[in-house]
C-alpha cells in the first residue's frame, strides 16, 4: 500500500495504436497494473509528439492522428515496482519506460459510501490544549495567518484545530481590536485552539512560533474524552 515517504514514479510512453493480444497496448498495461494492485495509474493522450520512429504524430494530419502518443503514469513503492517491472518491460514492445525517485506527500481516499452509524467508543486520557492568540489582519505569504496555521497543523497531522474570532481585545500590538457601526475593523482578535498529545503539540508549537509575528502561545494540561466511531471492518483487498 502506498504511503507517505519516498516512492518511485514510472512514466511509460507508447503509441495509441500499438496493439498487444488484439487490444490496445495502453489498455493492457492499465489492466495489468490494476490487477497487480497498483495504487493508481493515469493514461493521458498527448496533443502531439514524436518518438524513435522520427515521425511527428499530430492531430493536424489525418493519417497520423491515430498514432498519437499516450503517457501512462503511476506511483508505487520500490518493492512493488520490483515485482511488476519485469512484466512491464516485456509488455512495452514499442515505447519508453522511465523510472524516477519521488516523494509522496499525501495519500488520501474519499469514502465511497457513508459508513453505517455505529455506537461510539469513549477514549479518555490526558493531553495538552494550546491556544494561539493573533490578529485577523496578520498575514503569512499573502494569505491570512490563521488560515496558514490551520493548513500547517493539518499537514503535521494534528488531530484538530478551531479558529475563533473575538469581538474586542488588545494585546502585543497595544492597539484595540474593535468592530463598531461606523468602521468595520478588519483586525479583530483571533484565537486558535488545538488539543493534542504533548509530543505532537511541541512540534506544532515550534512550527507556529516561526510563523507568528507577534502573538501568544498558551499551553495548558487538559483531560480529554474522545468519542470515536469504531473502525468499520476492513474490506478485502481488491
Amino acid at each position, binding site marked *: 500500500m502506498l504511503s507517505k515517504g519516498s516512492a518511485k514514479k514510472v512514466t511509460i510512453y507508447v503509441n495509441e495504436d500499438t496493439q498487444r493480444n488484439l487490444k490496445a497496448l495502453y489498455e493492457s498495461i492499465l489492466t495489468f497494473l490494476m490487477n497487480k494492485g497498483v495504487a493508481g495509474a493515469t493514461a493521458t493522450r498527448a496533443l502531439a509528439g514524436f518518438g524513435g520512429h522520427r515521425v511527428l504524430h499530430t492531430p493536424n494530419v489525418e493519417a497520423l492522428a491515430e498514432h498519437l502518443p499516450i503517457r501512462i503514469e503511476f506511483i508505487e513503492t520500490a518493492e512493488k515496482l520490483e515485482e511488476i517491472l519485469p512484466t512491464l518491460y516485456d509488455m512495452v514492445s514499442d515505447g519508453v519506460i522511465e523510472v524516477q525517485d519521488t516523494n509522496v506527500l499525501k495519500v488520501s481516499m474519499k469514502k465511497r459510501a457513508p459508513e453505517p452509524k455505529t455506537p461510539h467508543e469513549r477514549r479518555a486520557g490526558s493531553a495538552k490544549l494550546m*491556544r494561539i*492568540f493573533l490578529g485577523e489582519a496578520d498575514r503569512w505569504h499573502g494569505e491570512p495567518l490563521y488560515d496558514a496555521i490551520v493548513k500547517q497543523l493539518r499537514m503535521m497531522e494534528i488531530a484538530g484545530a478551531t479558529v*475563533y*474570532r*473575538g*469581538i*474586542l*481585545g*488588545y*494585546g*502585543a500590538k497595544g492597539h*484595540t481590536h474593535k468592530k463598531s457601526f461606523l468602521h468595520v475593523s478588519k483586525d479583530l*482578535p483571533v*484565537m486558535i485552539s488545538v488539543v493534542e498529545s504533548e509530543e505532537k503539540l511541541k512540534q506544532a*508549537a*515550534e512550527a507556529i*512560533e516561526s510563523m*507568528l*509575528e*507577534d*502573538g*501568544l*502561545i*498558551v*499551553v*495548558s*494540561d487538559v483531560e480529554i474524552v474522545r468519542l470515536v466511531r469504531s473502525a468499520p471492518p476492513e474490506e478485502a483487498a481488491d
Partner: protein
Amino acid sequence: MKPYQPAKLLRLHFTERDRCQGKPLYEAVIDKCRELKIAGATVFRGLEGYGDTAEIHRSHVLHRDLPIIVQIVDSAENIGRLLPVVEAMMDTGLIAVSDVSVIRVEKAP
C-alpha cells in the same frame, strides 16, 4: 524555541446584556485591564449558552443577549491584582482561573 513561562489564564463568563456604568461590561473589563497594564485580553461572543439563571442566551429579533467570554493571560501576580477588581464589576457570571505555560512571540519592528 523559547522556553515556556508559567502564567495564569483568567476566563470571565457573562452575557452581552451585562452593563457597567452605562457601557457594555465586556468593554468596561477591557478598559480596566488596560488601566491595570494587563498584557492582553480578548472578548469572544458565543453562539448560544445558558448559565446561572438557566435562561437561554441567544440572538433575539430585537436585542442580542449572547454569552460573552473574556480571556486574559498574564503572570500570576497581575491576574491576582485584576481578580478583585473584575469581581466587583461583575453582577452574575463565572470566573475561572487556570495554570498555563506561555510563549510570547514578539518580533522586532
